[in-house]
């Protein structure tokens, strides 16, 4: 895709689409990280299917990880 940047409208659209793409990429990386981390924490003895306990652990882990990320962002914002 070769967007023209000739008009202000073109540029606006390009900026919007570029930000959306960056956002998608970030989300993808974040999901991958959560999957890696939470698998490690929750699936210690892989069985023939995901147990209820493992699912519950994964759910908690995802939520806690996102909370941790929020804490990091806040800490960096308030860092001198």
């Amino acid at each position, binding site marked *: 895709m070769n*967007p023209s940047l000739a008009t202000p409208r073109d540029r606006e659209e*390009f*900026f919007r689409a*570029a930000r959306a793409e960056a956002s998608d990429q970030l989300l993808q990386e974040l999901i991958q990280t959560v999957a890696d981390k939470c698998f490690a924490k929750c699936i210690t003895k892989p069985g023939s299917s995901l147990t209820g306990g493992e699912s519950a652990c994964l759910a908690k882990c995802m939520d806690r990880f996102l909370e941790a990320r929020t804490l*990091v962002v806040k*800490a960096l914002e308030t860092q001198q």
Partner: protein
Amino acid sequence: MSSFDAPDMPSGQDAAAAAEVQQFLAEEQQRAAMLGVVSKLTVTCWDTCVSKPGSKLSSWESDCISNCARRFIDASVFILNRAAKQQGRHSLLGREGPGERPQLDPPGLWTGWVGPAAGTALPPAEAPHPLMPVVG
């Protein structure tokens, strides 16, 4: 990698429009760098502070994570400054101008000599922004 190829900029491009695009790219690059730090720190501090995820983060875990992030930044600044001193310059990446000669005595602690890294005469190239227009 981005699905966007080089945006077409007609040769008669208005200078203000070009500046607008450059500004946007610079902002996005800065944002990406910042988010990179956040992601890396989140992983590091998660590993350091959270052993078994519960129904909520304990106050110990929360404090640990916040402290971890702040102290990581402090530690990085400390290390950079101290290494720069040991290297014998104000800046660890210091680049001599065209008329200057690399100092050989005393040698920098980190490389055994003081001067830019071998093979680099220019500032280290930043990773090209994935949306940066490709020329040619």
